[in-house]
């Protein structure tokens, strides 16, 4: 039992990593007042760019850089539309998701001619798992050993980075000048403007960070968790992250917990596939697949009640009386 639990949590860490990156990305952008349903697109774009570059240059790190570049580029388009031209945030997001869904396949077709896939990545082109010191030695130790060497050890660098990003984000948002201005811009841009700070600049910076984090999420998918790009491989993770973000009420730590919950349910779902439970018989696969969403809705309805986001969110900033 404990064994399987450990294995579940182990999988949970793997599965929630992209969610954590993406949800934190959303946190930066939405705390600055920019709705971002383009997370999905940025992840996918980065996943492709990362895998493509990694397979060409044979280095996961180069891949990561390209992934981040692509994602930030997309974020800037979002900014150009929403900040510079006061466009509708949702439309811009939908646009980006759609463009990326089409472009990734088209380009990978053109470059690799493998039906929207990139070649399988091998060796240094992938982020490989890191084994902690003495992990094997510790293995035998009861409980702690299992936790240390099976759960904590043996993930790739990006997984650890994702978890590290949570406290970092907390510090940035609540303890720094940038964080203060970021939150202010999301609550009342007029106040920021009259304080002599450029609203646009803050929002663009927020989006750049958002882009970087989505880039990490995408790169993780294609060069760490998997070995190569597949069309639509983001498979709704962007939307999941968005859910986690609102679920966590736009606060770093609750958001992390939300991501872990979703990840865990996903891990459960995968393992319960086609399992015949004595007495009950085979649980319909879909019942398990659907669990994360149903629970989310239930929680939304019951426990977390009104999710009150940043006041100015989604509203383009125009100089007019508030």
């Amino acid at each position, binding site marked *: 039992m404990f064994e399987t639990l450990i294995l579940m949590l182990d999988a949970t860490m793997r599965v929630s990593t992209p969610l954590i990156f993406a949800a934190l990305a959303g946190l930066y952008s939405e705390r600055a007042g920019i709705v971002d349903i383009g997370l999905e697109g940025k992840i996918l774009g980065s996943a492709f760019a990362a895998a493509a570059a990694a397979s060409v240059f044979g280095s996961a790190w180069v891949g990561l850089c390209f992934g981040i570049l692509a994602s930030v580029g997309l974020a800037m388009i979002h900014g150009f539309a929403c900040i510079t031209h006061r466009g509708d945030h949702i439309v811009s997001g939908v646009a980006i998701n759609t463009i990326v869904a089409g472009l990734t396949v088209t380009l990978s077709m053109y470059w690799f001619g493998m039906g929207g896939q990139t070649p399988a990545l091998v060796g240094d082109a992938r982020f490989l798992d890191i084994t902690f010191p003495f992990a094997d030695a510790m293995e035998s130790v009861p409980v702690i050993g299992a936790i240390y060497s099976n759960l904590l050890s043996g993930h790739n660098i990006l997984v650890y980075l994702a978890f590290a990003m949570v406290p970092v984000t907390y510090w940035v948002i609540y*303890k*720094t*000048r*940038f*964080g*203060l*201005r970021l*939150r*202010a811009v999301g*609550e*009342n841009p*007029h*106040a*920021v*403007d*009259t*304080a*002599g*700070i*450029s609203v646009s600049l803050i929002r663009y910076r927020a989006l750049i960070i958002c882009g970087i984090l989505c880039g990490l999420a995408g790169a993780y998918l294609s060069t760490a968790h998997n070995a190569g790009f597949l069309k639509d491989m983001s498979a709704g993770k962007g939307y999941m992250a968005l859910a986690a973000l609102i679920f966590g009420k736009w606060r770093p730590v609750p958001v992390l917990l939300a991501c872990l919950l979703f990840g865990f349910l996903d891990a459960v779902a995968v393992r319960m596939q086609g399992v015949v439970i004595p007495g009950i018989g085979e649980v319909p696969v879909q019942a398990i697949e659907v669990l994360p969403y149903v629970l989310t809705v239930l929680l939304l309805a019951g426990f977390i009640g009104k999710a009150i986001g940043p*006041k100015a969110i989604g509203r383009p900033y125009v*100089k007019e*009386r*508030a």
Partner: protein
Amino acid sequence: MPYAIELRDISKRFGAVQANKDICLQVPAGTIHGIIGENGAGKSTLMSIIYGFYEADTGHIEVDGKRVDIRSSQDAINAGIGMVHQHFMLVENFSVLENVILGAEGGAVLKNGIGAARVELQRLAQEYSLDIDVDAIVEELPVGLQQRVEILKALYRGARILILDEPTGVLTPQEADHLFRILKALKDQGVTVLLITHKLREIMASTDNVSVMRQGEMVAHRETTHTSKEDLAELMVGKKVRLTVDKDDAQPSEVLLSARDLSQFDSQGVKRLKDVSLELRAGEILGIAGVSGNGQSELLNVLSGIAPMSEGEVHFAGQVITAKAPKDAAQMRDLKMAHVPEDRHKMGLVTGFEAYEAAVLGYHNSPDYNGKVLMNRKAMLDECNERMAAWDVRPPNPHLKTANFSGGNQQKIVIAREVEQNPEVLLIGQPTRGVDIGAIENIHEQIVKLRDSGKAILLVSVELDEIMALSDRIIVMFDGAVVGELDAKDADERTLGLMMANAHQKEQEDEEQEGESA
């Protein structure tokens, strides 16, 4: 000596609207300079230009005799200009401290800056008696204190020129007086103050010079000592106006509405309205005086059915309304109760609607505006045209977006809508907030007319002038409860002021508290 600030031929156009035209203005250092003008005259725009919030199309600005070009608020701040906006520019869920340091944090990491800021704020608080709890969350502060935060923001940035746009619109007399003491103190420190207001009383009381704007142009400059309210009022609107309402004594008859022990708890379970009882008679105007935020809004909302009551009962039009048997706003309207809400932008109007649509808000279900299935657009338009003519709404265009009427004209649309329904009872909140004199006069006349036609009116206003000018009876509210009632004849600013501060019965207050705690 050079002027603290001088404007040369400032012009600004918004789309089709010439908001400011060749404005010239000279403000001597260390003076309080008043600027008055009707709604939409261009005052806010002009100030926004000085503060770098808008950029002027033409013209330039000189500070202390040196030409400065102000492209952003940052430039203005650097030039030593600070501004308290008509609509506050605060981040409501931030603490006072956070609001003040925003934009002047002193260091990439907050920890460093904050300590210094505390000290500095203490100093300012001392110097200008601006004391305030720097860790309080802004949205939990009364408006008066929020304004203080705005002033502190400006001073913290070392402003030598301070602009205030309609600062007293939201203040009680006491708060207003305090504000003017502060301005005085600032002046003594050599700070130059630009004061925008609709209230001539304040101009006369506190300014050294005054400039008058009309339709985007500067039409006159006066030394305050060499002018009078009437003179200024005439300059503003270009016609003679009376500042008092003349009305005969009320002929109160039967009770139309009576409330017993009304109470309301808010979502946090805090008792906002405390056992309020009152009677409203046909043919009288009952004024409710009080510092805003002392339960008047809650009272209006409960009576009008917008918010549910928690305890007590209301007798109206033969109905008994209780927490068990509530009536919503629509049902109250059907019982012929009309309501002019305190905040026209948030409640009274849908600013995105065309005027004729906004003019039926709340009565949209009435057969006058509806066919069997579809709404009767023609009927709505015809009526809107009539009313705009009758109430002198400018521009008289039923198809203009409500947002694009000035506050004054928006208010006329709302009041016309409610009064023209010829209700039995009219609840009316802040009828003339931010409305210019011409409009005020008209509105007051209409209210009195309604009274004389035997209707009952409940008037909530923070303008004591208004309360005293209109009311036949006055009730004073404090902290959600009625703390006193008196006949309009015996009312004067001082007594009312004391009651509003609940200072007239301090002792017995304390006894009560002991009673409770025992």
